């Protein structure tokens, strides 16, 4: 029951953060700025929202998988690892202004026609470094919990629940 609530909350939070909130913010961005974002990112705002929505659906699905599978199963471990990697790739994508291989150091040149050009630099390497450390620690923690977790607990728990009926 408690795991069910935890899973539901996790799914709802994922959907709010990756689907509802970005769409709400996007609907309040002036059209002039939308064009500028598209030029800088090399992606339209619609595509950015689609990427976020896809990530949100993946993370919500992983939460469901974790919720329905045994806590100490390989499936649950794989879901934890994939979730950490998806979040890290998202951080890489946005800190690199649409280019995950920029590793947080993004440079974009936007042509302003006859007037010349504008070069934009964004240095978020520290953010990427911290996100990478977080991903490694999260995966390590998931592996430790999987490797050394009390696997017998899952089997013992239902028996405890049945005892009063007997």
């Amino acid at each position, binding site marked *: 029951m408690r795991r069910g609530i935890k899973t539901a909350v996790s799914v709802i939070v994922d959907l709010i953060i990756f689907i509802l909130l970005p769409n709400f913010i996007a609907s309040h961005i002036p059209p002039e700025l939308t064009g500028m974002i598209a030029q800088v990112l090399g992606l339209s705002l619609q595509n950015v929202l689609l990427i976020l929505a896809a990530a949100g659906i993946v993370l919500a699905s992983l939460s469901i998988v974790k919720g329905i599978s045994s806590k100490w199963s390989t499936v649950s471990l794989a879901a934890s690892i994939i979730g950490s990697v998806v979040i890290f790739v998202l951080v890489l994508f946005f800190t690199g202004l649409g280019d995950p291989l920029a590793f947080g150091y993004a440079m974009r040149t936007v042509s302003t026609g006859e007037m*010349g050009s*504008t070069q934009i*630099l964004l240095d978020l*390497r*520290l953010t990427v470094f*911290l996100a990478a450390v977080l991903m490694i*620690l*999260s995966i390590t*923690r998931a592996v430790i919990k999987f490797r*050394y977790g009390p696997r017998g607990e899952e089997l013992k728990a239902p028996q405890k629940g049945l005892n009063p009926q007997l």
Partner: protein
Amino acid sequence: MRNWAKPLGILILILEITLVAATGLSLYTNLQTLGASLISGDDGPIHTQESEDPITGARTFTIGLNVTNKGLLEVLFKLRIKAIAEERVIAEGEGSRRVPPGGSEPLSVSFTVSKDDWERYVGGSLRPDAEVGFEIRSFFDLIGFGVTLRMRG
């Protein structure tokens, strides 16, 4: 090894808070500094001055602005100016100021164009391109952004 899971969880939480706080505060500080330094000012944020050396004929241009930090962290503001003609840098100047939160510091950058270059490019038909770039860094100079404008002559 089994007991490591809990301390790791605490460490992950601390790092998550650090990541969000460092990135959020830095971007906030940088944007506030950008707005206060380049968009404000009664008579415009940027002041220019021009002088000519009577002996060599070289012209020196000084561009100044007040770097105002309205953010929450210390910022490093860098300003760079270049004049480029025929893919050659004919004059350039660079300067930087470190400003504490709530503070304001004047920053001026000078560059000199020799008499020959002045007569050839600025006074002649080959107008040089102008490049003005600024960079704002905060959180121990680790997080920053910059914009460089290149204007055709």
